[in-house]
């Protein structure tokens, strides 16, 4: 009951004007970067566009926007209070609240990944379909992971400033390959896309760490929210 109410609450907030525009803007940015990279030279254009524009910049920013909107720009506790104060469980509401944004982010990342491969490789490339399929599943998982991480981080700060701190840490610390990059999604997403791995970890471990850390963030954020 509470999780469903949380899902409906976030869905209503995401349906407000602006979400579609933000999604289109992020998609245009991704496509623009892909076109520029292709113009630079086809060799490695897909990797550069995916690691840079699509999953390096557009995806984290769009996920940040989705979570901020789902939380009505406030902390996790305040975001669920309009229903929690009438007798619904805050923790269940938080779980429901994360779902719509995770679905939207997942769709966005899958679509932008496929588009980037299509633009940079072109249909003439024999392997474009296989690479596009890889980008679709990596994008779907990355979108979910980013959203869960941001939702968990929204439990920190009186107005949910935790998600802004997390965005900064992801950009700064996640860009490296040292131990400092382990908690943040960026390094593991880069590893899955074939970029520099964090601590030379395998892609399977990176996938497990990506999902593990994002669910851990969600769990911690949920536990910080009172029942």
């Amino acid at each position, binding site marked *: 009951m509470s999780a469903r109410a949380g899902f409906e609450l976030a869905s209503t907030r995401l349906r407000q004007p602006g979400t579609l525009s933000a999604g289109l803007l992020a998609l245009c940015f991704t496509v623009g970067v892909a076109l520029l990279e292709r113009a630079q030279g086809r060799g490695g254009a897909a990797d550069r566009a995916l690691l840079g524009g699509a999953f390096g910049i557009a995806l984290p920013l769009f996920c940040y926007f989705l979570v901020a909107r789902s939380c009505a720009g406030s902390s996790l506790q305040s975001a669920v209070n309009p229903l929690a*104060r009438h*007798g619904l469980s805050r923790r269940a509401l938080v779980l429901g609240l994360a779902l719509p944004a995770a679905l939207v982010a997942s769709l966005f990342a899958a679509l932008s990944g496929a588009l980037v491969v299509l633009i940079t490789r072109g249909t003439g490339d024999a392997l474009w379909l296989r690479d596009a399929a890889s980008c679709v599943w990596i994008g779907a998982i990355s979108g979910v992971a980013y959203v869960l991480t941001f939702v968990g981080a929204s439990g920190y700060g009186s107005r949910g400033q935790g998600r802004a701190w997390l965005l900064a840490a992801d950009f700064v610390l996640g860009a490296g390959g040292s131990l400092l990059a382990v908690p943040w999604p960026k390094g593991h997403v880069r590893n899955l896309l074939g970029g520099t791995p964090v601590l030379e970890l395998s892609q399977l471990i990176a996938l497990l760490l990506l999902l593990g850390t994002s669910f851990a963030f969600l769990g911690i954020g949920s536990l910080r929210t009172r029942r």
Partner: protein
Amino acid sequence: MTRAQFLGAALRQLRSADLELAPGRYVTLSSEPEPLQALIALASGQEAPARGSVWLDGIAPAASPEARRRIATLLADEALPPDRNTERSVARVLSARGDSAGDAARVLADAGLTQLATLPTTALAARETRSVALALALAHERAELFALHEPLATALTRSRVLETLDRHVARGAIVLCTTTSTADAVLLGGQWLCVELGRLRAEPGERPRLGFGPWQQVLVEASDAQSLALLLHASPHGLSTELGSEPSVLKVTGPALDVTVRELIGLARQHGIEIRRLSATVPPVESLLAARAGFARGAYEAARLAALGSVAPPPAGPYSGGYT
């Protein structure tokens, strides 16, 4: 019987609240709205106290959805769950607290807010949002605690709000209202509680009154001050008198201003004495200092007695009892 307890509960500008509320109506007054808003946030379980604890029948509302379901709230800054229109938002709240979502239109109609039903929640002004929230709170028939901030400052008619609160009190609910307006507090009635310097405490026993204390004096000018003084000395309230600057003026000291004045007027009417002027005097600084010294000495002696227990008092001598 439902009990709401605040044990040293603190949140932001509310430095401490110590209350034990039984079913009935309570009005908390303060010149500053912030401590009142914090009190309502604590009572409703919207926020947990930074220090101390809040309980509704032994359960902390901030940590228990079941307890929150038994609380109807009106906050200072209300936010309805977002939805296409207000009626759907109200339905969502009703559903969250276990009521029938189909009653949304009736809740709005009963409160005279039907015109807001089709408006989106984002289009409502702050006062309209609070009005809808108050309508929802008043329609909560299973609520055991009503925590309402400025309930008379909404679009709902005052008479309707007061009648509904009367009905809830009659069925055994606790109604805790907060306001910065003394006029609203008078209308709301019930027991008054005051926040002073961020602290709120319900005194046990007799309700604290304005002008309560041993140094409260009334200046009275009467046609026969001497007879009035004799009558006052004979009263059972322990009133004392002293002559004022003129023979017709008396200074009357009593336990509280209201007791003294009631007794004065009663005796004067009973014995046909004309009262020409009646006013409360400002207590002199010496009286206040003497009272403070008296409290300090009383506390010292109580502590000393407690420490000595059954030990015999020291023999009388030139310095015995000379402590200050």
